[in-house]
């Protein structure tokens, strides 16, 4: 029944990996501002359009 050790080991590693990833994302400042990105993602389309036009205008 060694499989149970493997399973516990795997479950711990996965959980710990998520914990570390969370710490990393907190440290990088991802959670400091939870509002602006929600607005920013809606801009992307307009931006791409403007960029294209920018190139067209320059040509």
């Amino acid at each position, binding site marked *: 029944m060694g499989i149970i050790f493997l399973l516990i080991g795997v479950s711990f590693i996965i959980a710990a990996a998520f914990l570390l990833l969370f*710490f990393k994302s907190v440290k990088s400042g991802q959670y400091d501002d939870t509002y602006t990105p929600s607005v920013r993602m809606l801009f992307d389309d307009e931006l791409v359009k403007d960029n294209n036009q920018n190139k067209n*205008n320059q040509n």
Partner: protein
Amino acid sequence: MDTTCYHCGTPCEKDAIAFDAKIFCCNGCKTVYEILNQNELSCYYDFEKSPGSIPKELKGKYDYLDNQEIINKLVEFSDGKTTVVSFYIPHMHCSSCIWILENLDKLNGAITHGIVNFPNKTFRVTFNTETITIKELVTLLSAIGYEPYISLESLEVGKKKVDRTLLYQLVIAAFAFGNVMLMSFPEYVQSHGYWLDKYKPLFRLLMLLYSIPVVFYSAKSYLVSAYKGLRNGILNIDVPISLGILVLFFRSIYDVVTGVGQGYFDSLTGLVFFLLVGKYFQQQTYNFLSFERDYKSYFPIAVTTIEKGKELIKQIYDVKAGNRLLIRNGELLPVDGILISDKALIDYSFVTGERNPILKNNGDPLFAGGKQLGDAIEMDATKSVENSYLTQMWSNAVFDKSNTKDFKSLTDRVSQYFTFVILIVALLAAVYWYFHDIKLIFPVVSAILIVACPCALALAAPFALGNTIRLFGKTGFYLKNTQVVERMTHLTTLIFDKTGTLTSTEASVINYKGRTLSKDEKQMVKSVLRASNHPLSRRIYKEFSDVATVALSDFEEQLGSGIKAYFNTTAIRIGTASFVGAKQVNEKKNTVVYIAIDNEFVGQFEFKNNYRAGLEAVFSKLAKDYKLVVLSGDNDGEKKYLQSILPDGVELLFNQKPQDKLDYVAQLQEQGENVMMLGDGLNDAGALAQSDVGIALAEDINVFSPACDAIFDAKQFENLPAFISKSKKTSKIIILSFIFSFLYNIVGLSFAIVGDLSPIIAAILMPLSSISIVFFVTILTNRINKN
């Protein structure tokens, strides 16, 4: 005005922009509209041309940004080429603002990219210093309507680190809680069995390992606070909590090591997790507001000095007595000094609350905090910044952060008795079992301490108060922390500042008295006013919005007296009574502007303070329960009027200097009163800090308000009594939930005393009590805030 912005839908206020037959709230919205509507990029080129169209008042304003020393303090990072700097931009208020700022790189190629943090209203921009200087960048931002606010404070706060310990503690507790639950579950559903018996020791060991960081890292603050409390002889709420945590931990270790049982690791990690959730919830902060402002956030970082005939930018802290300073229109006097120029018009509204500027002559002393209106003046500094009259007030002990008013929260007061009772119960149980079954003493006493751990008690207040300040915040009342809610329930005296607090700053009402002006005369008066920068002129000018202007000659402005000009041969004089040659008829001590045409007095404009809507209702409601006082820095010109609208018994005090206000509050407190102060300006700062609850009233919450316990949106003024009564109701909810949690404790104790507290009962009872209390207070606080 009830117009809303065509693009973002927010109500447009005073600075609405009309464009293309539509109204916009800001340049950002207008710009985005243009871009989207025309689908061309012409507007970008408009912006690139914009250096030519910078408003005049920006000229010279940012000269201090040429000073390398100041730049070094401002920037976050610089390698000589790429530079990163963060600006605080109070004007950003909608999604278009984010858009335009983050696309700044399209307006100016030297900007690499910018990131907006909207809740904090900061803009972090990376740019190339070789092609654009920081001064040019700031000027560009100002030109498109996003003027960064750079003050002494930004030099100091800029590189502050964010403390995320609580979040880490919470996450570790959650991680351990989840894993321990998983491990403890098998023993709950099955007491014996081949597989269980085989892996039980491993599971128990793992649970023990998971709990170690929870006790020694996540719960650290509770243990430390309990230790500190005990050392000072205070039984705060953290004492029974820490006792519970430690007993849980060591009892569980004992159980596991001796093989008696599986221990209470799931209850332990769950308890810490719930407590930290409560703490996190309570930590609700308003990032974009600051409650700790002092003069530093008002004062500029640098000032122009004149040395040997040359202009030189100096940092404020480097200004010494004897320096010659150049103060431009609209700039703040940073230090006390003596006027060297002929005349100056100083607006001391920051300091005294009095809005009308005061005329100073050559040789007159000037005090820091005043604002020069009109032409640039020269002055000699007589003191350094810290020693000036206004800034000196901040050295008063009131502003010392260590001087926290000793206030015992409801939880702490209850927990004093609670801890005491629990210890007595544990002792009695120990005595009882000593005579009946000595082996049971340890399990019973530890079970009592475990189950008595006041998790529900500790959660009630954070959730009730945390939810309350959240709901208050949605309706324009921003509290610094949860303690303010509790303080508001103990008030006995409410003190109001007059100017800016009871009166609205924006619209002073103008009455015209005199003979009716003909159309031509109106045109002449308007034209004369147009040329003047005096605030009273600007205000009256607005009254003539639908009148055309005419060309004038021989315009002359005499500071402190009035303005004079000719239209053809007609002389128009506007100003003080003596200036225009009118008889002074002014009983109420109102501000009056007189007009004479061709040396003949024609009429006068009277300014009257505009009191806030609902003032009378607010006062008559509050007068029933509180002693009310009006403290004003102004003269007593409006005393009679105030007496007529306010209920009897309201004390009215006038001509109060900032220090007087502070002393008055302190004096009341000595008589045992709990004082709430409502003020707006720096002149109230001392009184706000001294009072038990200091509330800064703000027309625009993004504009700076002095250090205080709460920031109150002026539009909500009439709801003040409602907010106070809601705080009182919240307090009652907390007491009610305390009773609830005592009931849970009694149930738990009845299991513990007889020695029946099995891990599974603890694992059910503790989270159940916590979660039900949280639900209970959240629902109730939501309800009282709905009505």
